[in-house]
């Protein structure tokens, strides 16, 4: 493994975007940053700036109003980048799937690398999802049926 690859795995900066979620998953995403779970020990920090982010963590279903914003944020992130859909809504649209303004999961708008199901997804699951993303970044084949 080259130094650059190692640095990429050791320093994931996360951009968190709420796509119209009920905030249940957002609370869990923030819980992963608290002293109990402390993802900063793996070099993961929550950064507000898409231009410096490596991972886009999306919660909530994609709808017709915010798909523009979501695509804009994704396009502002420089390569290499990853997208993690956190929560059932972000994965498939969840309980909102047949609402008239909902398009579906965020994968209808941007390419998603890791799906973290759950309503709300637990911090352990979110960290597990980030670890999967790190494996994908390292070029390892993901294990079958993580969830």
């Amino acid at each position: 493994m080259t130094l650059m690859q190692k640095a990429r795995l050791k320093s994931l900066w996360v951009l968190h975007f709420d796509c119209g979620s009920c905030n249940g998953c957002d609370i869990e995403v923030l819980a992963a940053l608290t002293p109990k779970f402390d993802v900063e020990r793996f070099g993961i920090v929550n950064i507000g700036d898409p231009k410096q982010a490596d991972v886009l963590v999306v919660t909530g279903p994609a709808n017709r109003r915010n798909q523009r914003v979501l695509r804009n944020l994704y396009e502002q992130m420089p390569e290499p980048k990853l997208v993690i859909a956190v929560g059932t809504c972000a994965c498939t649209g969840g309980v909102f799937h047949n609402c008239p303004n909902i398009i579906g999961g965020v994968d209808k708008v941007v390419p998603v690398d890791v799906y973290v199901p759950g309503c709300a997804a637990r911090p352990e699951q979110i960290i597990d999802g980030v670890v999967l993303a790190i494996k994908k970044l390292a070029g390892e084949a993901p294990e079958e049926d993580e969830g």
Partner: protein
Amino acid sequence: MDYPETLISATLALATPLIGGLLMGVDRKLTARMQERVGPPLVQPFYDAIKLWGKAPMIASGLQPVLAFGYLGFALVAAGLVTFRQDLLLVFFVTGIADICLTVAAFNAKSPYSFLGGRREFLAMLSYEPVMLLAYVAIFLVTGSFTIRGIYEYGAPLLLVLPAALVTLMIVLVIEMKKSPFDVSGSGHAHQELVRGVFTEFSGYTMALVELGHWTKLATTLMILSLFWVPNPVIGAAISLAMFFAALMVDNLYPRLTWQRMLRTTWTVGFALILVNVAALAAGGVI
């Protein structure tokens, strides 16, 4: 200056980004411990910088990479001026030019966050630079010279004659490190202010350059603080590290204040402390 001394000074000047990077690692570890977290490894800032260097370039304006290189370059020149024991005023102005590079780069992008961050960075400079200059004038009044060589020739520890100036430079250190309560122009770690404030429009290798410049500036400022106990460099380093630790404590204890409060604090408390110190020395017949 003889040959080995020149070599040591040059090595030290080139090592300032590394020392600063390690100090940032210590900063993140200590901050995490103060918040009862485990915290990232000590070399985390280097991982971050290497990763940023490898990201695809996404340049907001053509002038930005030049200014990012300028920020690092002028910060390195300032570090070299300190290690070669040159003029403190020159160090002051070269550091100022480095800051102006950063601010102009922030103004150069069409982003309201970057613009506001740049404006606040100018206000931060307006807050700490006059106070820093006055502290250097106080050093001149005591040692009779603006050069660092002059401080070495003075011989006695400056801390004993200018304790209030060191307290003032503590406030300057907090502003320069972009720590709470004075992190109005852009904040590190997971803190956020105006997205990333003055750093918003930097990405990829330009951000890595800005980080390196920031580390260099931090190490240079700490080297200047260590001049307050010149006869013994170990005690000098201990003083500057103690002030670094105090800045982290302040960062974790206090919330962010507005730039008006920052300006008021430095221009009242800072000026008053140094003037009282100088007045006391003049009354005591030291200068």
